[in-house]
């Protein structure tokens, strides 16, 4: 957790710079926080099991496709291979009474619910996640950045 603030501050600065709408900005921040929490928790478990320290890199970038512009937060880590299977994942049963709720699963559910696109790839020994939010047409083009 020692780098927690650094990663959060990096993402927050770029989110605030790119996304003006408060609700969309909040939701991307929420998705990133949940993702970072999952990555760091997995890295901690792996390290307790004797694995090497995990290196996490975060990038903020703009992508354009088919006349649509996206702001993308990308993470890449060399931790244990973990595919969250966003495409086939069962949704949290939001109708289930709270008294019967299990504690797990909310984080991944919030990631999926809070951004326009979420992607996962296992690429050259790295877990690569992308959280994408569609930008308004009039958005400017700030510089890219990265932290790791």
């Amino acid at each position: 957790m020692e780098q927690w603030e650094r990663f959060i501050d990096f993402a927050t600065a770029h989110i605030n710079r790119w996304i003006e709408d408060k609700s969309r900005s909040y939701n991307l921040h929420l998705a990133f926080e949940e993702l970072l929490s999952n990555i760091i928790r997995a890295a901690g478990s792996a390290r307790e099991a004797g694995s090497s320290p995990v290196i996490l890199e975060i990038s903020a970038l703009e992508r354009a496709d088919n006349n649509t512009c996206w702001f993308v937060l990308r993470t890449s880590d060399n931790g244990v291979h973990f595919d969250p299977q966003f495409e086939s994942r069962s949704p949290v049963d939001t109708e289930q009474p709270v008294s019967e709720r299990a504690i797990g699963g909310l984080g991944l559910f919030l990631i999926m619910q809070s951004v326009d696109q979420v992607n996962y790839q296992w690429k050259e020994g790295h877990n690569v996640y992308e959280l994408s939010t569609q930008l308004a047409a009039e958005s400017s083009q700030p510089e890219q950045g990265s932290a790791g």
Partner: protein
Amino acid sequence: MALTIDVVKGDVHATLVLSGDVDTKTAPELLGHLTSLELHALEQLRLDFIEVDFVSSAGLRAIVFAKQKMPHSSRLYLIGPSSEIVETITKTGLAQAVVIVESEADI
């Protein structure tokens, strides 16, 4: 952002006034305060969120924990959460477990 929590205890109700972010790093502080309460004996738990800027799933889990420990007939009030926090609570289905009010005067 750091989280500060002030606790006011009554016989059958308790109020926690929070200020800051309830995220992965700070939610254990909220859970610690909740654990120290006699949740099973409370008729009301009031969580003052007027000065809370952000709540992650870790914060929601603390709320679920409290509600599960409280009597079935009890009420858990969330006071003054932002529209973004209300949206998060609603889309996770937790709105059924809490009563959301704008201010303490609405209770």
